[in-house]
């Protein structure tokens, strides 16, 4: 059967030391902005990813402060200079305080 993950990080297949590479990340997560009401159910509570933090080794390299304007299942990509071998870790935090972590190893 298929492999399915809520969180994912993708690095290019091949890259050299010091090369600038594109990193793609994604989490499957709802986005409710708190202002939508469904019939008989009242307002749907605010629920979305409000922070994405990226660590290269122990260093925090990017912090995204998101709002309800971030999409559902946010897909976030950035460029990284692969200077050394270290884990690349992405932490997503949602409005209910839940944390989701995914990590891949950058090997140069």
């Amino acid at each position, binding site marked *: *059967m*298929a*492999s*399915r*993950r809520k969180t*994912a990080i*993708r690095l290019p297949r091949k890259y050299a030391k010091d090369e600038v590479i594109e990193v*793609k990340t*994604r989490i*499957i997560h709802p986005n409710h902005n708190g202002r939508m009401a*469904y019939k008989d159910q009242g307002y749907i509570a605010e629920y979305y990813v409000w922070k994405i933090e990226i660590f290269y080794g122990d260093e925090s390299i990017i912090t995204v402060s998101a709002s309800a304007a971030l*999409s*559902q*299942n946010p*897909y976030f990509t950035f460029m990284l200079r692969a200077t050394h071998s270290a884990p690349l870790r992405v932490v997503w935090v949602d409005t209910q305080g839940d944390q989701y972590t995914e990590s891949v190893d950058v090997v140069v």
Partner: protein
Amino acid sequence: MAKKISRRGFLKGAGGTVAGAAVAGMAVGAGVTALPPRAQAAGAVMNKKAELPKAMGARVVVVGGGWSGLTLSKYLKKEDSKLDVVLIEPRATFMSCPISNLWLAGLVDYEFITHSFLDAARNNDYTFFNATVIDVDRGARKVFTEQGFVDYDYLVLAPGIDYDYGAIGVSDPEDVYMLSTHYPAAFKPGSEHLSLKQKIHEFEGGAFVLTVPSGNYRCLPAPYERACMVAAIFKKERIKGKVLLLDANPDVTIKGPGFHAAFEELYKDHLEYVPSVTITGVDVHKKKVTSEFDEFDFDDAAIYPRVRAAKLIETLGLVDPNSPQKEAHIDPFKYNVVGDERVYVTGDSRPMPFSKSGNTARSEGKFVAKLIAARAKGHDVEWESPRTICYSVVNIDPMEAIMVDATYAYDGESFGFTNVKMINDRDSIQAQSTLEWARSHYRDMFS
């Protein structure tokens, strides 16, 4: 990539001093050979008048016998019985894409969705011409088919959609052929649907992959309805199989609460919904779909790639250069090709973001018929919005459906839904309405 060869460079390469006539013969060049004599003669056939009844009034030629073309042909005659209407369609039999998911699930029989173009033409007093359009000469107002040309006063092109496999990373012609033959999308009715029904009923277990493309694809709710129908069959037949619905969009694109409720309440064991899957390739031999982040193995599948306007629109040089789905360059309110009030494009080849679905095509067809009939008399009419009514059956036992009904408004920049009525709580009344809706449309088009 093939290097572009200039005429001068070609001449040099060919030896430099070849005579002009010989060059003309050779210039057909790479991969194209001169036509054999009988094929050349086919050009002569095309260049004579097609054998049709003589036009009794201004002639409107409608190309494409889908929901749009059939409606236009009928309503042009209703608007003005003096108009002479010819419907050109390459298929000999009509098979409906709307309701075909119900047929896949055995809720209606084949006769319910299959109809005769002859009935449609005879009962509505227009001419059916079973032929394939090859070209159009807009200057001379002629449509060329393999059986000769037809003169027109007005021309309506409603050729529907084609698939864009390149958008899911499958572009080699051999791979496209393999994928479209082994795992057809089944959104162009005919053999694709017959293959899919066979697949579903012969399925022995495992993962059955269905996909939802990005962009404005044919019938927004249909892939979700189909997923429900296939899962319902697996559930009913106790097949240890699961529908894996891979959606390029972040969530169900329409009637979300209704479909999610069905997925969770009815098909928990037989359907898995995976959003935000951007497909980057399909390996037919290994039975594997690859996406940006994941790989999905399947035992059988129906891969619905991105759609584009029918290739005929491109062949005729009518594509809007800004349209990512190669749709026609027309006036969005009057439907005529920009700069040519004799030629119109309707149905799923239109560039407006209307739902590519049956009810939309029919309400639009009625408006365009009224517009052309008025213009033939030197008048004009105000734009009317098409109306999208769409039922989706989500349960087969008992039969239950959800629905949406909406029109469109223009805000000065773009079109958006307005007057939206949505029923997301599935019930059997909506299911009965689904069948009534279909019956009334078939009746109107064919009798």
